[in-house]
C-alpha cells in the first residue's frame, strides 16, 4: 500500500482503538462527578464530588444506601494476594522443572495450560458440585481460592517459561565455579536476573484474580468478593457511587502498574544502558 495512505489510516485506526479502550473508562470517570440529584447518565446536572464522599460515608444520610463493598474489597485484595503468591511460586517451580525435558513433560504441559482454557462457569459449577459432594463449605478463601490458583497458575507458568527460555544457565555455573553455594547462587544470581519475570507473573496473577467473576460466582459461598458484590448492587438500582468506586479501583490498578514499571526499570536499567558500537578493548 502507498505509504501516503498507510500512515493516516493507521493513525485513525490507532485513535479508534484507543477510544474503544479508554472510552468506557472516561465516561465512567465523568459520570462519577455527577451531583446528588443526578442519575447514572448524562447530562451532568452539576459537577460535584458527592458520590465520592458518599462512598466513604462522610455525607449526611441519604435515601441511597452506602455501597456494600468495603469488606468485599478487603476480601478480594487478600484473595488476589494469596493467589499471586501461590501461582507465582508454583509457576516458577514448574517452569524450572520444564527446563529439562522430563518424561511425560508434553502431557503435563497441556494439563497445566488446561486451567486457563476451560470455561470458567463450568469449572465453577463443577467445583461447587464437588464441594457439596465432599461436604466442604464453599468460601472465598477455600473453594474460590483453589479455582483462582488453577486459573492464574498457567499464566504465571507461561510467563516464567518464556523468562527461563531466555535465561542463560552458564551464569549459574559461573557462580558455582567461583565457589558460591547453590543456595547463594540462586539468591544472588538466578533470582535477581529472573525477578522482572517473576514480577510480570505476579502482576498477571493479581489482576486476573482481582476481577475474576465466573469461577468465583459458584464457589465463593456467602461472603462475596468485590466483582460479585458490585454485580449484586446492579440488581437493585445503579447510582453514580459505583462509578466513583470504579474510578478509585482503576486508580489503584494504575498505581500497581506504576510500581511494577518502576521495579522493572530498576532491575533492567543496568543491562540496557549501553547500546553503542563495540570498540576494541
Amino acid at each position, binding site marked *: 500500500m502507498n505509504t501516503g495512505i498507510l500512515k493516516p489510516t493507521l493513525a485513525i485506526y490507532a485513535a479508534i482503538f484507543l477510544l474503544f479502550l479508554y472510552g468506557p473508562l472516561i465516561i465512567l470517570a465523568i459520570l462519577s462527578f455527577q451531583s446528588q440529584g443526578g442519575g447514572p447518565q448524562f447530562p451532568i446536572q452539576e459537577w460535584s464530588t458527592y458520590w465520592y464522599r458518599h462512598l466513604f460515608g462522610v455525607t449526611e444520610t441519604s435515601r441511597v444506601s452506602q455501597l456494600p463493598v468495603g469488606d468485599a474489597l478487603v476480601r478480594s485484595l487478600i484473595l488476589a494476594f494469596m493467589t499471586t503468591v501461590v501461582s507465582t511460586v508454583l509457576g516458577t517451580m514448574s517452569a524450572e522443572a520444564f527446563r529439562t525435558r522430563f518424561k511425560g513433560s508434553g502431557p503435563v504441559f497441556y494439563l497445566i495450560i488446561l486451567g486457563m482454557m476451560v470455561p470458567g462457569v463450568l469449572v465453577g459449577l463443577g467445583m461447587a458440585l464437588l464441594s457439596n459432594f465432599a461436604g466442604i463449605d464453599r468460601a472465598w478463601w477455600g473453594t474460590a481460592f483453589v479455582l483462582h490458583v488453577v486459573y492464574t497458575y498457567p499464566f504465571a507458568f507461561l510467563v516464567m517459561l518464556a523468562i527461563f527460555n531466555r535465561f*542463560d544457565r*552458564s*551464569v549459574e*555455573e*559461573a*557462580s*558455582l*565455579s*567461583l*565457589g*558460591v*553455594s*547453590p543456595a*547463594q*547462587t540462586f539468591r*544472588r*544470581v538466578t533470582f*535477581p*536476573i529472573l525477578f522482572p519475570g517473576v514480577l510480570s507473573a505476579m502482576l498477571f496473577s493479581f489482576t486476573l484474580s482481582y476481577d475474576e467473576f465466573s469461577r468465583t460466582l459458584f464457589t465463593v459461598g456467602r461472603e462475596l468478593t468485590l466483582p460479585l458484590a458490585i454485580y449484586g448492587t446492579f440488581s437493585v438500582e445503579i447510582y453514580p457511587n459505583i462509578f466513583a468506586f470504579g474510578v478509585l479501583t482503576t486508580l489503584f490498578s494504575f498505581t500497581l502498574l506504576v510500581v511494577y514499571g518502576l521495579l522493572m526499570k530498576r*532491575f533492567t536499567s*543496568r*543491562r*540496557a*544502558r*549501553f547500546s553503542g558500537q*563495540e*570498540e*576494541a*578493548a
Partner: protein
Amino acid sequence: MLKLNGITRRYGGTAALDGLDFTVPDDTYVSLLGASGSGKTTLLRLIAGFEEPDAGEIVLGGERLDGKPPHRRDIGFVFQNFALFPHLSVQENVAFGLKHRETGAIASGSELTDRVAAALDLVGLTGFGHRGVGEISGGQKQRVALARTLVTEPRLVLLDEPLGALDANLRARMCDELRAIRERLKVSFLHVTGSETEALTMGDMVAVLAQGRIAQAAESTMLFHQPQNPAAARHLNAWNLLAGTVTGGALQTPVGRLPLPRPLADGTPAQLAVRFDQIDVAEPGAVPPGQDHFTARYLTGEFNGPTTLSFFRADDGELIQVVDHMSNPRLPDLEEGKTYALHFSPEAALLYEGAA
C-alpha cells in the same frame, strides 16, 4: 597436578569420552585441541563438576574431585560467552566470588576493594569497575570474566574457547595477554579450542582430543613436527594423509605406489603423512632424483596473505594440499586442470601402521 584416569561419559548410546587418560602438569599452559563435537567442552564440564563422568576418576593435587559439587572444587571456569552477571557492575562481577563463596569469603570491605582493583589491574581494566557489563566491549567482557575467575585464586583455570567470541584482531592480542597473565600467577590453564593455530600458539603443551581420547599430548613444536598418529596429524590441519596397504615393500595407495620409510610386512594397512609445506610441485617427468612422488591434478589456489594454499586432486579423488610461502616461493606457475608431479623427500614422510 590434575590427573584424569579412564574418564568415560556417555550421552544416550554414544560415548563422548571413552576411557580418557590425561595429566595437566602444574604451572603449565595446556591447550586442548579438538574438532567440534569431539567432547572437549564435555571434558571441561566434567572437571569443573557441572557434569559427572560415567566412569573414571578426576584427581587434583592428590584429592579426588569427581562426585564433589562444583562449588567445592576450587576450579575456575571461563566461558565462551563470558557468562557475566548481567545485573551487576564490572566491580561487583569481580568481587562476587570473594564475597559470596562458601569458604573463605572476605567480609572486610577494604580488602575486597583492594583484591578487586588488583584483579582488574592484572587484566588491564583499571578504572572500569563502575561500568555495567552491558557497557563494555567483547574483549573487555572477556577480561572481566578472567578477572572474576582469577581473583578467587583457583587451583586450575579451565577456559572453554575463551577467544571464540572475539574478532581476529582482538584474539591475537588476548592470546599474548592470557599467556602473560598465566605466567605471573603460576597456575595451570587448560584452554580448549577448535583452532589448531590457537592451540599451538597458546599451549606450552598441546593435547589433541579425538574419538573420546587424547590422541597425543606433547610440547607444541614437537606435536607439529612429529604427530604420533593419524588423528593427531589430521587435527593439525597441516598434514596430507595417504592411506593404503603394504605390498611388495611399498605402500599401495590410491594415488600410486609410494616407498616406505621403514619396512613393514606385506598386507599391513598403513598411512603416510606428508606436511603441506614439504611437498614440491614439478612437471611430470621432471621430478628431481631421490624424491618420492605421485601425480595429481591442480584444482585451485587459495591466497591467504603470506601463504598460498594449493589444492590438488589425485586420480582417485583424494584431496592434497600444498602450502607455499610468499617470501620463499617453491611452486612453479600452476595451471588449473593440469596434472603435476607432487614430490617430497623420503625423510619428510611419516609412516603410521593401521587402517585409516
